[in-house]
């Protein structure tokens, strides 16, 4: 026996029932759990920012730039887990040069580029251009040049041009909302379009992905806002938290409804695959589905959010609760990604058995790698907040 295959022999010993002999290996591991999680954070954060802009929600103003920069820093690494899980990563460029039009994964490359270059970068650029011009005039040395390059040489700050900045930024936001919807709905489609897998194949999956994306993005912005305020030693505005909390509550409810709808539909139709899915849900997925995703990620946050709408006494306690809620929601959405990605591969396509899954720590598709891709955007965000501090922007009167 080749020691190279030792882990597969272990899995073989743990398989239950009958699985096809090629199903021994889980094809998509923890990195593919992280991938939709990160993309979801991007889409969610952006949608929150757009809310402020399009619907002129004044109260959310302090979080606008934070949300945009959060979205950007996560978007920059969004494709990395995908690329690092390939067994031939050096060939990844082929997706861009010969994309197969019928493949959901191929078109994702273009959806991603569109979103990165046309939506997010442009929106941030229009938003910051005025300030960057001012900064480039104020600063000395390297920083001066960095800002100069970032303005792309457009240093006209006459009222007319600035007016256009705002106008164009607004247009981009309008384009951006459907783009953000598409970006993450599309990630859901990568799974939802696979008719071979009954756990994934569902027209509701893209929509569910979208709403859970919004939930996670909003929670993340709330978290980042609190942490950034804390680090800057500025008071956290409770009104901001209340407003975000309200959105979080409604979207969490929607998300919960949609997911229940999907499961109820599955249970009622009880297709060929129903028996195996029932076993999956009550066995291998019990902890991550009912406890992590359902209880910790949905029910507890929902109750807490309702409570916070009425409880207005101890400010410190309220803030702590918002903090905990956002962390719980993030855990819940992460578990949801896990349940979809890993859960969909645990049962055999013969519907007669289960394989087992053990996450490795090291290697290109191990836990450390996944953690790295989750931590990296936080570093990028810190850098972006230093480079483009929202609190030092040039004030513009409306």
């Amino acid at each position, binding site marked *: 026996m080749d020691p190279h295959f030792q882990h597969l022999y272990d899995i073989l010993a743990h398989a239950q029932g009958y699985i096809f002999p090629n199903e021994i290996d889980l094809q998509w591991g923890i990195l593919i759990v992280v991938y939709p999680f990160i993309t979801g954070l991007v889409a969610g954060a952006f949608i929150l920012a757009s809310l402020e802009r399009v619907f002129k929600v004044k109260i959310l103003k302090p979080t606008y730039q934070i949300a945009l920069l959060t979205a950007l820093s996560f978007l920059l690494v969004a494709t990395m887990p995908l690329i690092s899980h390939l067994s031939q990563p050096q060939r990844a460029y*082929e997706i861009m040069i010969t994309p197969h039009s019928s493949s959901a994964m191929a078109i994702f490359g273009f959806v991603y580029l569109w979103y990165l270059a046309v939506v997010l970068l442009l929106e941030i650029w229009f938003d910051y251009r005025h300030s960057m011009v001012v900064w480039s005039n104020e600063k000395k040395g390297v920083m001066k040049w960095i800002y100069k390059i970032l303005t792309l040489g457009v240093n006209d700050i006459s009222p007319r041009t600035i007016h256009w900045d705002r106008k164009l930024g607004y247009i981009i936001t309008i384009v951006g909302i459907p783009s953000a919807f598409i970006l993450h709905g599309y990630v859901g489609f990568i799974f939802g379009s696979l008719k071979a897998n009954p756990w994934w194949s569902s027209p509701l999956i893209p929509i569910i992905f979208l709403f859970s994306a919004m939930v996670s993005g909003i929670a993340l912005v709330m978290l980042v806002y609190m942490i950034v305020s804390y680090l800057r030693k500025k008071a956290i505005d409770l009104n901001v938290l209340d407003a975000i909390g309200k959105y979080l509550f409604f979207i969490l409810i929607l998300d919960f409804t949609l997911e229940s709808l999907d499961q109820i539909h599955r249970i009622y139709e009880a297709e060929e695959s129903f028996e195996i899915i029932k076993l999956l849900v009550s066995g291998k997925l019990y902890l991550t589905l009912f406890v992590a995703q359902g209880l910790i990620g949905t029910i507890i946050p929902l109750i807490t959010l309702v409570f916070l709408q009425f409880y207005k006494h101890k400010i410190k306690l309220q803030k702590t609760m918002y903090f905990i809620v956002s962390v719980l929601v993030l855990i819940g959405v992460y578990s949801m990604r896990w349940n979809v990605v890993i859960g969909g591969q645990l049962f055999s396509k013969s519907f007669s058995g289960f394989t087992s899954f053990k996450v490795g720590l090291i290697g290109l598709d191990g836990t450390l790698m996944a953690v790295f891709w989750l931590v990296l955007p936080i570093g990028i965000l810190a850098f972006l907040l230093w480079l483009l501090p929202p609190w030092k922007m040039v004030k513009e009167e409306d």
Partner: protein
Amino acid sequence: MSQSTSTMGNEKINTSRRKFLKTAVTLAGATIGYTWLKSSQILLFAAKPKDENLPWYGLVIDIQKCIGCGNCAKACKNENDVPIEPFFFRTWVEQYTVKNDGSVNIVSPNGGINGFEQTVPTEDIFKSFFVPKMCNHCSKSPCTQVCPVGATFESPEGVVLIDEKYCIGCRYCVQACPYGCRFIHPVKKVANKCTLCYHRLKKGLEPACMETCPTGARMYGNLRDKNSDLVKFLKEHTTLVLRPHLNTGSKLYYNGLSSEVR
């Protein structure tokens, strides 16, 4: 900074910029034009109409004939350099045993290579049979549909193949095949599956599994040729494909397929 100098500066930049823009646009246009002329394909490479002179391969597996000896699975591993381990098979044999209480026992120890041992006591057996499995060479194959780069495709002869030099190893096709026919080759690190022994067909030989099947349970042939043995067989027997509701356009027809088979 006075108003006049800035305007003048702007105008100067504007002309040089316009020039540059013009060049850039021409360059882009020329490249697009060239790519277009080259193959009239910018990003999409359309499939060519099927060549009627080439065979269009289909397969038949006769379940009644299969004795579960596993010679096919063994020969396949030998012929196609698949690691000799109890996982990763381009073809394998399953044994279904339907018990008197209605429950179904499915096994495929080492893909059937070492034969089968009946573990269900004889008095409990309602019926039992062997089912050889392999790639169905689907004509509407979900696996080629999802490959992001075109590294798996249907050959003009209707054989679903993999381009080992182009596969990026994303495993999307493995997920998309409803029959569990694909795997990532542990040494080559690219997708792998039955090629219907394309290299043998091209040399005028039978696929290895058919060469070594002692009972002739497997058959391949040209679906276009109405006089081929395969087409005749299909005419005379009631055959079925696996998972017909998924509409994969499977070209592997089973004779005597029982409803328990997945």
